[in-house]
């Protein structure tokens, strides 16, 4: 392989500018838009619903709740997940909680305030109408989940408890200890199970969607692989819903589950769906640091730890002393020093970036030097051990189990890690992508989170989409479109099946010298290095030049053992990594084009004199929806060279209600 | 509203219902065993007391019932209880075996106590012992070193434990009984749904007490005879 050129290519050749997006956005007072829109949408007669078949890919909060709700309404639903049971989707790992504008604490919360906080928290890169709707239905979610038996935390009086989360000034977060995601998902899973039992949902666990079938411009089905038998089969539908989660595993190490992947969304993108804002990824500042090359994933610890823990590193670079022997005046409590008013409670991105900075200066701690201390000694002195145990006992236990260190005695070591991706497939107000009939919900869409997600908002969005938005907007599509009946005999199904089979065969045929994980790790580290907590023009060009090299190497030297006719986990991984290798390039292109700092995207060239993120609303107050630059009629991988220049469609964002300001935490 | 919750099994077609039958029959047998032991302890008093107890068994509730009727009713109930207990032990046991046809290469347990793990083997041991015991003291087919006299149970007891190995057989069988009672006693509460975490320890203590009590009560007789305290 040849050395990739050092000098960046001409940036203008990295992408093409396409037509801006103008979609019908509901108007009128923001509080009435959703109600008005619901009234205007067409309905499907209950007697006809059974005739419509809807495919839902993914069974996390969004997918399970959507599949259950659509089936309850009478539609014939087929649901697919790669896990062995729909109950295992990665929503299950969410710890913190779910926001809702119930104002149970009587502290001045309201739908409007939740809306406002979410737009502002998203650094003004989301659609106002969508976010308002999200805040509106948040209250219904809590009602729905409680009715299903989700055991939310309660006060002694028997009413629901709330806490303040992620620096919010009101207590609007509902939680079930540190397992809110699990409990919400089990609620949705149970509702889905009921529909499976009734025969309204055909459930396909251990099935992976490998292609989207678009006929006459409409999404009409998917091609899936049975992960147990290897059988590749087509499924026809009147509408396809992708609820396949985020693409955080493009960084290899993330807090995502090992199986989380971009394959469903990326292959839909290859078939014509636009991918929006892929560079908006969120980094969580308090994860357990990497312990060695064998590290397979990262474990997040609730950010509530920063309420009492103090973040510090030694002042002296490369200080070898153990933390308890470093005197107070040789410690640098860098967050408290730089942000006196917010201290350790600065937002996730600020805390993360500063941790990276001190580690880059060589002041990081631990074996790898990529960690900072999170110290509870003062809190234990102030509040006593029992209080700390009560508040954080389970987190401390988890930390000790993984690291074999006692955080009551020695400070924790933490480091930021990727844990959520705000970008995703572009959708309109109806959650429909630019391909009619293809709906995208939950983390898989480019979401209402803008450039940055507030704590406890991911669960809210997933369930809002699945329970309360899609079940209204999808029928409107069915009622307005006159779809020709198709079967899996349609030539396009054959094309897709053959593309999937070809990809599988090619992956299996190489039997090269490097394992899939080696490529995944190599790519992930590179993306993390150049497009992680901070990005700059030079690094992004390096990344854009480096990725094709890894991809070429992959298609030349990958070793996928076994065959395609049985359960083959290496093959599954290889398919996913082959998509990440292309997707990463779009992510880097998006990051390169967005020459502003914004939410989770910190562009080093765009900062204030104090080194804080600087948004550029004049140039970048839009969502960037990327169209695949190559033809949509084939899934053939890009083996050598960069991906075909993607086409940028800008969706301008207008803010009628929320006042644009620069964030400041000084 | 449609639902999938349509199955309406009658209790005794479910495995749990069958366990309830085992618990009920086991509890009845345990009550009888306890009464049996208390009666046997009379052998420690003197021959007339013991004989009067044997006499009482035959004349229980007489009048109004004719002699031995009540004894027979109890015997029939007991046989029925044994039948139920053994039948479900076998069928449920076979079911569990069928649920794990391929076995582990390496077996270990976290906490399982021997009493819980040996319910089936212990039960088989007890079944064999009961037949042996009946052959000795009811039917009089086995009487090593003494002559069996149906009318003189005291004589039979004293004669039976003249041989040391007979004491050993009884000791082993009673140990098996104690183990079975220990786990069975606790299991009755668990199976009938009367257990919870607050009562669990208490029930465990009761179970230990009951099994120790029954073991010591019964074993005192062979040892008493062997030691010459009963003659």
């Amino acid at each position, binding site marked *: 392989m040849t050395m990739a050129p050092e000098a960046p290519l001409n940036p203008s050749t990295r992408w093409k500018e396409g037509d801006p997006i103008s979609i019908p956005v509901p108007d009128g007072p923001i509080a009435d838009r959703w109600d008005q829109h619901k009234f205007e949408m067409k309905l499907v007669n209950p007697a006809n619903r059974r005739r419509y078949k809807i495919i839902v890919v993914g069974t996390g909060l969004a997918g399970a709740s959507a599949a259950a709700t659509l089936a309850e309404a009478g539609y014939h639903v087929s649901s697919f997940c790669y896990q*062995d049971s729909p109950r295992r989707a990665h929503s299950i790992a969410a710890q913190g909680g779910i926001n809702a504008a119930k104002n149970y604490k009587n502290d001045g919360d309201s739908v409007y305030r939740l809306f406002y906080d979410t737009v502002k928290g998203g650094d003004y890169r989301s659609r106002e109408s969508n976010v308002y709707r999200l805040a509106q239905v948040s209250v219904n979610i809590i*009602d729905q989940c409680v009715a299903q038996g989700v055991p939310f935390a309660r006060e002694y009086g028997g009413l629901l408890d709330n806490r303040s989360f992620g620096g919010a000034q009101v207590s609007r977060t509902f939680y079930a200890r540190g397992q809110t995601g699990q409990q919400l998902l089990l609620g949705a899973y149970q509702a889905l199970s009921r529909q499976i039992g009734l025969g309204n949902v055909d459930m396909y666990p251990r099935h992976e969607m490998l292609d989207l079938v678009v006929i006459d411009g409409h999404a009409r089905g998917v091609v899936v692989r049975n992960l147990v038998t290897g059988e590749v089969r087509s499924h026809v539908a009147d509408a396809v819903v992708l609820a396949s989660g985020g693409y955080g595993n493009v960084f290899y190490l993330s807090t995502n589950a090992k199986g989380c992947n971009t394959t469903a969304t990326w292959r839909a993108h290859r078939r014509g769906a636009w991918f929006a804002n892929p560079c908006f990824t969120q980094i969580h500042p308090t994860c357990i640091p990497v*312990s060695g090359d064998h590290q397979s994933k990262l474990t997040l610890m609730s950010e509530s730890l920063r309420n009492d823990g103090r973040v510090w590193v030694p002042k002296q670079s490369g200080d070898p002393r153990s933390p308890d022997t470093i005197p107070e005046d040789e410690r640098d409590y860098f967050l408290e020093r730089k942000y006196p008013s917010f201290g350790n409670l600065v937002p996730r991105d600020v805390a993360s970036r500063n941790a990276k900075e001190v580690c880059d200066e060589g002041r990081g701690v631990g*074996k790898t030097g990529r960690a900072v201390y999170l110290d509870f000694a003062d809190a234990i002195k102030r509040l006593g051990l029992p209080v700390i145990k009560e508040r954080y006992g389970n987190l401390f236990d988890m930390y000790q189990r993984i690291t074999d260190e006692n955080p009551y005695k020695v400070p924790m070591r933490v480091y930021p890690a990727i844990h959520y991706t705000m970008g995703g497939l572009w959708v309109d107000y109806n959650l429909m992508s630019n391909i009619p009939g293809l709906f995208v919900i939950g983390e898989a869409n480019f979401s209402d989170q803008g450039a940055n997600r507030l704590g406890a908002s991911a669960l809210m969005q997933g369930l809002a989409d699945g329970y309360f938005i899609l079940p209204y907007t999808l029928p409107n599509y069915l009622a307005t479109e006159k779809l020709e009946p198709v079967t899996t005999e349609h030539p396009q199904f054959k094309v897709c099946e053959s593309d999937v089979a070809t990809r599988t065969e090619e992956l299996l045929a190489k039997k090269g010298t490097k394992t899939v994980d080696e490529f995944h790790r190599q790519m992930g580290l590179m993306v993390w290095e150049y497009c992680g907590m901070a990005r700059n023009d030079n690094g992004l060009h390096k990344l854009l030049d480096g990725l094709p090299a890894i991809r070429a190497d992959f298609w030349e030297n990958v070793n996928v053992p076994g065959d395609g006719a049985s359960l083959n986990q*290496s093959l599954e991984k290889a398919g996913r990594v082959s998509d990440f290798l292309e997707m990463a390039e779009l992510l880097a292109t998006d990051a390169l084009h967005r020459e502003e700092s914004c939410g989770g995207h910190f562009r080093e060239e765009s900062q204030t004199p104090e080194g804080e993120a600087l948004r550029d609303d004049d140039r970048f107050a839009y969502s960037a929806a990327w169209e695949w630059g190559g033809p949509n009629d084939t899934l053939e991988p890009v083996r050598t060279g960069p991906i075909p220049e993607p086409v940028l469609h800008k969706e301008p964002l207008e803010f009628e209600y929320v006042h644009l300001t620069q964030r400041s935490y000084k | 509203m449609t639902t999938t919750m349509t199955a309406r099994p009658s*209790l005794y077609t479910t495995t749990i219902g069958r366990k309830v039958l085992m618990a009920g029959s086991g509890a009845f047998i345990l009550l009888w065993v306890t009464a049996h032991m208390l009666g046997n302890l009379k052998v420690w008093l003197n021959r007339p007391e013991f004989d009067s107890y044997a006499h009482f068994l035959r004349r229980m509730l007489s009048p109004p019932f004719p002699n031995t009727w009540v004894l027979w009713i109890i015997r029939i109930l007991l046989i029925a209880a044994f039948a139920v207990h053994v039948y479900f032990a076998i069928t449920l046991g076979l079911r569990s075996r069928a649920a794990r046809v391929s076995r582990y290469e390496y077996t*270990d347990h976290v906490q399982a106590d021997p009493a819980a793990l040996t319910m089936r083997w212990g039960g088989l041991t007890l079944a064999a012992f009961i037949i042996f015991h009946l052959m000795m003291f009811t039917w009089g087919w086995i009487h090593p070193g003494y002559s069996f006299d149906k009318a003189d149970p005291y004589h039979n007891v004293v004669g039976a434990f003249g041989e040391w190995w007979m004491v050993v057989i009884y000791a082993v069988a009673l140990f098996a009984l104690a183990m079975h009672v220990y786990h069975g006693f606790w299991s009755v509460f668990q199976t009938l749904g009367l257990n919870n975490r607050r009562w669990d320890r208490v029930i465990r203590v009761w179970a230990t007490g009951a099994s120790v009590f029954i073991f010591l009560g019964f074993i005192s007789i062979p040892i008493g005879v062997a030691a010459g305290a009963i003659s």
Partner: protein
Amino acid sequence: MTVIENPLAKPGSEPQSEGTIHITLKVWRQGSGRDAGRIETIDAPDIATDMSFLEMLDVVNERLIKTGGDPIAFDHDCREGICGSCGMMINGRAHGPEQATTTCQLHMRHFKDGETVFVEPWRAEPFPVIRDLIVDRSAFDKIIQAGGYITAPTGTAPEANNLPVPKPDADQAFEAANCIGCGACVAACPNASAMLFTSAKITHLGSLPQGQAERDARVMSMVAKQDELGFGTCTNIGECSASCPKEIPMESIARMNRDLLRATRRRRRRPGQ
């Protein structure tokens, strides 16, 4: 050749040889459910004690692939102890030697240098082996489909705080709802019984006021389904609860028994039900 350095490693730091162990794996290998399986011996040197058990298997698999071998198939996903995907018998214990710990959260520091470690799949007829350490646990889904839910179609819910739930009830429901459906209870039970799994859901939903309307129907349907699926019978041994990574207590089983007795009794009284 583009060399991408590990940016997470401190420059100049050498791989540590201390903190590693050498173990021998005795792993169950089975091509598919139809094939006969066998124990295969795999040598595993240089295993860092910081690794999780699954990371150890990752490393072993990477070496196997590199040497033309067949990697060990095992279920895993979240790797933080909550999804319930992973699970294997390690030296005869479900999820290995540590209590209240899933396999993914078990670390190699709990093994000794030179140790031989047996790794087997969950064994139960209702959990047929798919490949190596992967079994089909869809029987659990079927038990839930039979009644492990509260019927509350979207849109029908009343205001959440209209129904106060006493905190102890909510806490009890939560404790039972902790179940991750991993199957360790069935695997560890000498009878391969699913009582702990089924009872956890019955306790979760039956502890809440929302779950009362269907409480009788739920327990009857779920018990009938678990019986139908061929799980073994509970003999109150308690290995399930002791092996449960989420420590679901035995009292859930007592509670399910009680609920079933009550449900069948009430049904006799109200035969229309």
